[in-house]
């Protein structure tokens, strides 16, 4: 019991510590692909520290919601990330909150962020909030459809069990799995405000979505929101890694050596996924806003197709 709690707490701390590094890594790879030197890989930590130490400037008419939202958004994102197996399966919190809850927790964070963006009453906040909710209206069901597919495979909606199932040899290749993977990748790109959907590096553009929502934030509030965004990116990459590349992950109850291997494997997978993400990002141009629903609609259709294939191929006993 104690050991399970320790694993859980270690994973929760790991996602938190690693998230800025992941952002630094993606920025570094991106810069190198663009033949720039790029900032140091630990620059995001410095940025967060700098922001935290600064005075927070908020608009005169900002309400308590505006000030409280960053912390709740961060907390919900963090809990969701702590529910995703990283280097070991058998997370004890999985028995309290399953895969559907992860999606819903991210939904809560998004809901609050969209509200906070509307709080000051500026046009940029409104544009970001409204577009974010439009994207989410397709991305969230697409993600849920992928969740359904995976849950039907593993006979469980708990992410730990799904990951353990995919790890075991009986999990073969399947069309439904491929469809779920495609859906998840598209959703990850959309939800993390990556390039064809949104541009994380943009400012003062009518096309920005996530940045428009946090435009009024500064100082410690901004730092907390940036950290939440980094944790969210890590969450999605860990999710793809733990389900579709479960190799090396330590199974619950393994020895210390397996845990070390698991951790190493996790870091390698994360780096590989970050590299793939950045290559994709640099190779593609940003979409018009009203192209995005088509992009995310593809994810929804793929997810639904995967689920339907599983429904019709299941022989009742």
């Amino acid at each position, binding site marked *: 019991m104690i050991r399970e709690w320790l694993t859980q707490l270690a994973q929760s701390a790991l996602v938190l510590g690693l998230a800025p590094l992941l952002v630094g890594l993606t920025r570094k790879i991106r810069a190198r692909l663009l033949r720039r030197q790029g900032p140091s890989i630990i620059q995001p930590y410095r940025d967060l520290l700098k922001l935290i*130490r600064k*005075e*927070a*400037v*908020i*608009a*005169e*008419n*900002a*309400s*308590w919601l505006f000030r*409280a939202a960053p*912390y*709740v958004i*961060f*907390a919900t994102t963090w*809990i969701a990330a702590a529910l995703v197996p990283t280097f070991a399966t058998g997370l004890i*919190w999985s028995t*309290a*909150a*399953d895969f559907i*809850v992860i999606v819903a927790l991210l*939904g*809560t964070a998004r*809901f609050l962020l969209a*509200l906070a963006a*509307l*709080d*000051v*009453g*500026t*046009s*940029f906040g409104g544009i970001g*909030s*409204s577009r974010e*909710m439009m994207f*989410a*209206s*397709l991305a*969230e*069901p697409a993600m849920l459809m992928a969740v*359904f597919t995976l*849950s039907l495979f593993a006979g*469980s*909606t*708990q992410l730990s*069990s799904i990951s353990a199932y995919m790890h075991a040899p009986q999990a073969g290749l399947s069309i439904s799995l491929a469809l779920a993977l495609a859906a998840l990748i598209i959703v990850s790109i959309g939800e993390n405000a990556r390039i064809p959907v949104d541009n994380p590096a943009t*400012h003062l553009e009518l096309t920005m979505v996530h940045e428009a929502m946090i*435009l*009024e934030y500064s*100082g*410690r509030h901004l*730092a907390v929101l940036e950290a939440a965004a980094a944790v969210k990116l890590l969450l999605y990459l860990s999710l793809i890694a733990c389900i579709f590349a479960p190799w090396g992950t330590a199974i619950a109850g393994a020895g210390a050596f397996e845990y070390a291997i698991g951790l190493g494997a996790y870091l390698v997978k994360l780096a590989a996924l970050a590299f793939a993400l950045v290559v994709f990002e640099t190779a593609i141009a940003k979409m018009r*806003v009203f192209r995005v629903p088509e992009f995310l609609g593809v994810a929804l259709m793929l997810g639904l197709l995967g*689920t*339907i294939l*599983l*429904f019709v191929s*299941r022989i*009742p006993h």
Partner: protein
Amino acid sequence: MTMVSSWSLSQLAATGVGILLALAVLGIVAARRSFGTRAIYAACALVCSGLAWVALLTLLAPVSPIDVIRIPVGLPLGRTLLGFDPLSAAFAVIVNAASAIVSGYAIGYGVHAREPLRVVPFYPAFIGGMNLVLLAQDAFSFLIGWEFMSLASWALVISEDGSPDNRRAALVYLIMATGGAFTLLLAFGLLAGAEGHYAFEELRRTTQSGVGPIVLILALVGAGSKAGLVPLHAWLPLAHPAAPSHVSALMSGVMTKVAVYGFVRLVFDLAGPPSWWWSVPVLIVAGITALLGVLYALMEHDLKRLLAYHTVENIGIIFIGLGLALAFEANGLGAAAALAFAAAIFHVFNHSLFKSLLFLGSGAVHNATGERDMEHLGGLIHRMPVTAVAFLAGCIAISALPPFNGFVSEWLTFQAILLSPELPQWGPKLLVPAVGATLACSAALAAACFVKAFGMTFLGRPRSTAAIAAQETDLWSQGAMLLFALLCLLAGILPGFVMDTLQPVTQMLLGTRLAPQSIQPWFRIVPIDASRSAYNGLFVFIMILIGAATTALTVRRVASHALRRSPAWDCGFPDSSPATQYTAGSFAQPIRRVFGTVVFRARELVSMPKPGSTAVAKLAVELHDTVWDVLYVPLIRLVDATTERMNALQFLTIRKYLMLVFGALITLLIIVGTWR
């Protein structure tokens, strides 16, 4: 319990209904003074909480056979059977708990009515009618209660008849209610057969062969029109907002539940064992209802109409659960049926809480500003802080977000959907994943809808002088809203207790039940098996609290405490005019473009002035209510044309009238003769 032993619980409940009806009469006198108005509402609150307790006691200690009291008055055989069985008791708990809190709100809010005499007497009668429907143990009392409920609520809808919109709403409502009651009458008539047994007990025993499918369709139409299933939802967004807000809360949050009760009573209890295909029409209608309901709500700028449309969505979610339960039940998958049914009835409970809360909030806003149009609101979080907190809780709950209660029932529905590959038939197999996707879509759209509702009303800068001058509402109203918000949270973090309390219904209708949930360790819920899925709302809630608190504390330790207020940044181009903010219309524009072009044939018409001209450019949005255009408009035309023709009958000579009567008699006799 010893106190009630001499009086049975059913007698107590019947007395409660009697008191409510007496209050209705008293209301005629009492409404002349604001003190009397308050007293009537306070009495309603007391009676409703009493009724809720009585129903809860019946539910927790079900007796078999159920305790029925016979009143020797009534149709057709001179008797009325009243009593609670687990099904009606569960709905009575839901209906009366919400009605009690709404009545508490009305103690403060109700005195603002312009003409209290048109509201106060009908209010207790409305609640009494709903309770009569639930108490009825025979078809006649059921229908009488149903009509009472419809007419009393109709009177409340017409109570503010100043605007032609309200009068139209009342007319449409009256027509739909009459039609609905008529189909229910037919359904009961079919079930009773030629012998004419009208007590539920007898109807259950003598199931007529072959009438099941027809009863299902009639129940879908009759109860569905009251509940707001698409395409019979048309009256709902007209009538619910037209009434005063505490009545809107009852109509949208509570009366629709009585309609769901009617459907469940007819289809699950009286219509006999279901066939698998019964689930197909229910699931199709429910899926369409869920998605269309929320899309309609998103297009709406009037806060109360938005909420009313959104009720349509929630009714869809409830019927998805009921449809799944039918499919599982017909295939002998008892545990899965129990889960789907438990999800549906949990959502019934949840919706009665958060929809009532949101309507009360909209009432507080309307009272403070005189506005229902979100385009004229904004910034109320500063001036109405308590209302804002309660309304926010309701918005999170209704958007199915953890840790509030809406998420739990949606989670349970998803769990039921994930069990449906076990269904052997192809129809449901293909249909259920699509319904699941619809449900997921509507949940995400609901979040967008309530970001809009809360954001435009309470956040941002005030868009009108009324919104600037708004004042917080009275303490009674605040208390009622906060109580609803608290219940939403409690039902979300301790769902096991709610599920266990509602389980006797599942036991009664499906003969099976879920494993007890409240004895699970750490208050989690495990609908099927712990290795399959579990949810712990309390854990999620505490973790969010701990996470947010530690983050805030850590940041405070490390970070600078300095906070400076300054004008908004807005990328360097802040504009002092509140008109530069996003409006409800602009917020919904992306979704309108993505979904609305198909569903509503939405078009944006831009009229630009010629270069050099100083005329204003205009943007108009054109939306078509497809359901209304396709279904109702031709119907209205048909009725109009027919009445136009029939009008000639009014001016005949007496001879012609006699011939007409004679002809009709002969025709009828021929029909009867050939029928036999």
